[in-house]
């Protein structure tokens, strides 16, 4: 009998779903090998159907997206209960991803911003999302929106992690085949990624490991052959797992860190901060401060994909 | 008109009225005024010998606390008050436990918002000696003045930071600008005997007497002071009957503010200089100018 697989998306852009379609024709023989029992992005499933399933009846659940509301958390728990293996699929589920940048703010500010302050918003009645509303027909409910975005493993026990925003195609097929009759590493492993930093697969040449200025990529035309750091563009590559094939760098864009920290790393952002500042070409207080001040939005830069997963997880309200 | 918050102190209300008047007159002449602070009281200089050093500070703290309400700089004239208030302020800024208990003891606690300065510092740092020199209408040519500092302006030097405690020069520098000839004499920083003159003049008089002698022997014809008590001691030590009073002729003692006033062209009465003092001053000047003097 074919192994049962589930896909779910929580707080995410949907890119991870597209990543699965990157399998292309392979999806056909995937469906020959497995039963897809739950996949809201593709087919209409009811949560009730899922909740009705017996415990551990699903072999593997691929869960993408961060946990930003009560619905996300509920699904995470249900899927955990119903599945033998739960996989945090993609940067959001694994690290918090872009959604967890919301942890630099809180619900009230986010609502105010989205439903009031933005210039394109027209909301004269000042209507804000409510968890439940009475109307004549009865009661309407919405999931509760959280102050703090969490990673999947902060709400449920996770067996494996697959990084990437989104995970690149060939890695996805590799991972899936690992689950379908493949060899599996010990619990907690990061699949579909390298054990070394992106620099290991980066084709750019490194000459002088010094930083005398910092610019944003739009402010300069960078040399596509030279290391971006040495050109003053902050590239998270050194502090980020490889395995993506350095596609961003091939497109002359710096790494943003979506593949997450390295095996022994305590905190991806802090590590990058440390490495970057250590090679500042400045010794005097003034020069150092000048370079420090030229770093755009440190928190957002160093934790673009990993705030929820980081040591600090969020800012103080 | 620029005005400075001003603490007169008891003596300048009574025996040292002339110091107060002349200073205020000079200030006006120099285009600023000394604005008397509200509700000032005795600085507690007399208490400074009392054992319980907490009490010595309670009074002055109250003064500073009140001054704080009116301004951030407090000008003093009497060297005694200056010494007490400045050191009280320093102590307050240390935020020591003693200070805390003083603040809890006083109804209004002082938060160290006041800088205590002496009138001399104001005319040196705020007005500037160059301005003074230009403002001089009647240069006091040939007036051989012995500046007398005493202790309270200078010591303890670590705290007062007013001038070099051993070789001070601020008064001489001022007098030069007024056209006087300042006389350097060794005793100018010696102690005048201070409050001993109250209880045991037989001990204080020889001390101040020695100062007068020293000034005499170096050719001073006049003594300029910045402290009422010093003035009193230096004068009384020369009176007949004072214990080993100097044999030389009487050496008049005036406040530096009075000389400043004269140089600025103010009338003697504005400076409360009596005819006797004026006579002495003219006498001294003319003698040297006509070269009847040695030196």
């Amino acid at each position, binding site marked *: 009998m074919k192994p049962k697989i589930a896909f779910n998306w929580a707080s995410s852009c949907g890119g991870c779903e597209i990543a699965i379609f990157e399998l292309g024709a392979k999806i056909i023989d995937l469906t020959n090998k497995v039963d897809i029992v739950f996949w809201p992005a593709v087919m209409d499933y009811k949560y009730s159907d899922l909740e009705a399933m017996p415990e551990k009846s699903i072999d593997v659940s691929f869960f993408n997206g961060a946990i930003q509301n009560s619905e996300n958390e509920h699904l995470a728990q249900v899927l955990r209960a119903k599945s033998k293996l739960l996989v945090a699929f993609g940067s959001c589920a694994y690290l918090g991803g872009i959604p967890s940048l919301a942890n630099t703010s809180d619900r009230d500010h986010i609502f105010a911003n989205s439903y009031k302050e933005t210039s394109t918003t027209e909301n004269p009645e000042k209507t804000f999302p409510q968890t439940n509303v009475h109307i004549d027909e009865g009661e309407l409910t919405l999931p509760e929106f959280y102050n703090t975005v969490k990673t999947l493993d902060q709400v449920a026990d996770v067996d494996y992690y697959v990084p990437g925003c989104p995970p690149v195609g060939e890695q996805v097929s590799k991972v899936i085949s690992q689950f379908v009759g493949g060899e599996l590493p010990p619990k907690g492993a990061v699949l579909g990624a390298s054990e070394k930093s992106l620099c290991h697969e980066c084709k750019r040449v490194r000459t002088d490991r010094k930083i005398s200025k910092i610019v944003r990529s739009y402010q300069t035309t960078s040399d596509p052959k030279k290391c971006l750091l040495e050109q003053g563009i902050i590239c998270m590559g050194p502090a980020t797992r490889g395995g993506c094939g350095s596609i961003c760098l091939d497109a002359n864009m710096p790494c943003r860190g979506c593949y997450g920290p390295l095996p*022994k790393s305590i905190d991806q952002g802090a590590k990058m901060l440390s490495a970057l500042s250590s090679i500042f070409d400045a010794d005097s207080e003034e020069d150092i401060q000048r370079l420090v001040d030229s770093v755009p939005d440190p928190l957002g830069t160093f934790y673009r994909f990993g705030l929820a997963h980081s040591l600090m997880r969020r800012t103080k309200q | 008109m620029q005005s400075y918050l001003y603490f007169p102190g008891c003596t300048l209300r009574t025996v040292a009225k002339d110091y107060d008047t002349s200073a205020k007159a000079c200030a006006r002449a120099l285009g600023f005024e000394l604005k008397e602070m509200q509700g000032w009281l005795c600085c507690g200089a007399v208490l400074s010998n009392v054992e319980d050093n907490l009490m010595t500070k309670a009074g002055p703290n109250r003064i500073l606390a009140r001054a704080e309400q009116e301004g951030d700089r407090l000008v003093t004239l009497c060297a005694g008050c200056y010494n007490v208030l400045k050191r009280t302020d320093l102590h307050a800024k240390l935020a020591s436990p003693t200070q805390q208990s003083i603040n809890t003891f006083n109804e209004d606690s002082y938060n160290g918002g006041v800088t205590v300065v002496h009138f001399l510092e104001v005319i040196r740092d705020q007005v500037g000696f160059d301005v003074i020199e230009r403002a001089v209408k009647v240069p006091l040519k040939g007036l051989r003045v012995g500046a007398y500092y005493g202790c309270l302006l200078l010591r303890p030097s670590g705290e007062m930071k007013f001038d070099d405690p051993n070789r001070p020069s601020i008064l001489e520098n001022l007098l030069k600008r007024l056209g006087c000839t300042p006389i350097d004499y060794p005793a100018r920083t010696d102690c005048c005997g201070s409050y001993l003159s109250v209880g045991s003049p037989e001990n204080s008089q020889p001390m101040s007497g020695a100062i007068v002698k020293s000034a005499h022997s170096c050719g001073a014809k006049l003594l300029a002071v910045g402290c009422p008590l010093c003035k009193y001691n230096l004068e009384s030590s020369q009176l007949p009957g004072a214990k080993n009073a100097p044999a030389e002729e009487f050496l008049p003692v005036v406040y530096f503010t009075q000389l400043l006033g004269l140089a600025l062209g103010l009338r003697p009465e504005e400076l409360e200089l009596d005819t006797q003092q004026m006579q002495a001053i003219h006498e001294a000047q003319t003698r040297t100018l006509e070269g009847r003097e040695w030196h």
Partner: protein
Amino acid sequence: MKRVGVFVCHCGLNIARTVNVKEIIEKTSKRSDIVFAADHKYLCSEPGQALIKDSIRQHKLDAIVVAACSPAMHEATFKTIAQLSGLNRYNCEIANIREQSSWVHDDPDKATAKAQITVSQTIEKVKLNEPLQPITVPVTRKVLVIGGGIAGIRAALDVANAGYQVYLVEKSGSIGGRMAQLSETFPTLDCAICILGPLMVEVYRHPNIKLFRLSKIEEVRGYIGNFKVKVRQEPEYVDVAKCNACGECAKVCPSEIPNEFDFGLTWRKAIYTPFAQAVPPAYVLDAKNCLGLLPQACGECKKACDQLGTACINLDAWQQTHELEVGAIIVATGYELYDATKLTEYGYGTYPDVMTSIEFERMLSASGPTLGEIKRPSDGRVPREIVFIQCAGQREPETALPYCSKICCMYTARHAMMFHEKVPDGQTYVFYMDIRAGGKGYEEFVKRCQEERGLLYLRGRVAKVYEENGKLVVKGVDTISGKKVQINADLVVLAVGMIPSAGSKELASTLKASLDANGFFSEAHPKLRPLESPTAGIYLAGAGQSPKDIPETVAQASGAASKALDLLSSPTLEREPTVAQVLESCSGCGICIPGCPYDALSLNANTKLAEVSEALCEGCGTCVATCPSSSLSLRNLTDQQMLAMIEAIVA
């Protein structure tokens, strides 16, 4: 899992007075990860060490924590005991509960609580320590001595005589230092230069000593056993080898300036010999006061020298940099005198007849400005009444130097005695706070001066000195009679204090050797390691470390020399193996490479990954913090250990 044992020291009452040792033992033994815990009155004592030894054997411990004084104190002792008991010495860790707890906190409960944390954090660390073997590296068997005074001379000779190469660096034109300026020395009244001169010559002739005059230390790299030193030498306009010190050059030199050797009491030319017995015995051209070298303005000296055929003057000489490799460095930078003009109450600088003791010393010297005659600088008259003021600007924390210079009581007695010799009918007064005459024959010497010579010692300080009709009026107090005293003197001599010589600060930071609050070089331990700087391989001699007299200086110099020899005695040296290591996750990004001050990091040519040269790595761990991929680790101070310790503290 490791079998960890904990030992807590009472240090007599030093720890036990504030830290509740029993409670710590109790709490610690309750831990599931602790096999054994015990306390002792003095763990560093023989029975204390025996306790550790036996317990390790008996309980088969494979790691121990010793909670006692600072690791700076006894870490080595306890690691060795661990080793002798069959443990790897790196499985022993020290928890500092004395300097960091019992001595700085009053509240016993709080002190104990803190000590408890210190102990548990150390337990967490030692659990993750790995056994290591020391790294052996070769030793450069040469010594650098900085400063050519009596301390430097003695140290240099001792090392050289033991058969090792010495580089002696002196900033002035001649070695000899302060001692060369002295006339006699107490208490024996030996002529200073008579006993110093031969040593100076010996240095100059010694095959194992290379002397650099007019030189400064520019840069010091490396570490104990292997220092790389750059010495910058001012242009040698006069060829030391050729110059025969005939002095013809000086005769024709038109530029005359005050002679610093006599503190401006005499004059010298721009080309001159520092003093009669100068070593090297060659003239010095003082470029600052020469009429001009670039462009050449005068050149008379060269003409004169060339005419004589000596031809040892080269006016186009350039400064040179010498690169030296040494295993040990001896710092003997000596002292200067406190600026007496700051002591305005004494009027030095205002009244010519107020002089400092060292100026008086020059005047006493037979080769001095007055050829030993004592004369008033103002009018050349022989003074009849002389006042010596001891502790001038010393033991005065508020206004001048807080410390005592130790030698003034002695040389002042000597000065007074010499004055009495030369002016028998003169009267001498000495103001003192108290006489500090600790030293062999010192007390006797002072007594002799006081009694036989009828010198008047007044216990008290001088309030002020001023001039009155040709006399110096000295006003002071005699605290014994309780009377104010006034002396009308002809000459006043100030015993000003010793301060570290100029440049000590720069040198200290070049050497990475620390200075104390008064700017003297600080020793590794005030009692037990007075000859060593806290920086390994750097040794201290003479007044650069603290004020001291000649016998002490010479003793310390020989001591420092023997310390250096101890290091040089073996061709290799064991270094701490707690160095950086590269983990498999290294991607070869190369960000760590430029940061290493020792060039210990490099990218392997084949693997293109980082690698550490253990011989070069000093174990600072900066690269570990720098590595963006956490692929560098510091042995026995790994991130895991740091995390464990942090957890233990905040738990």
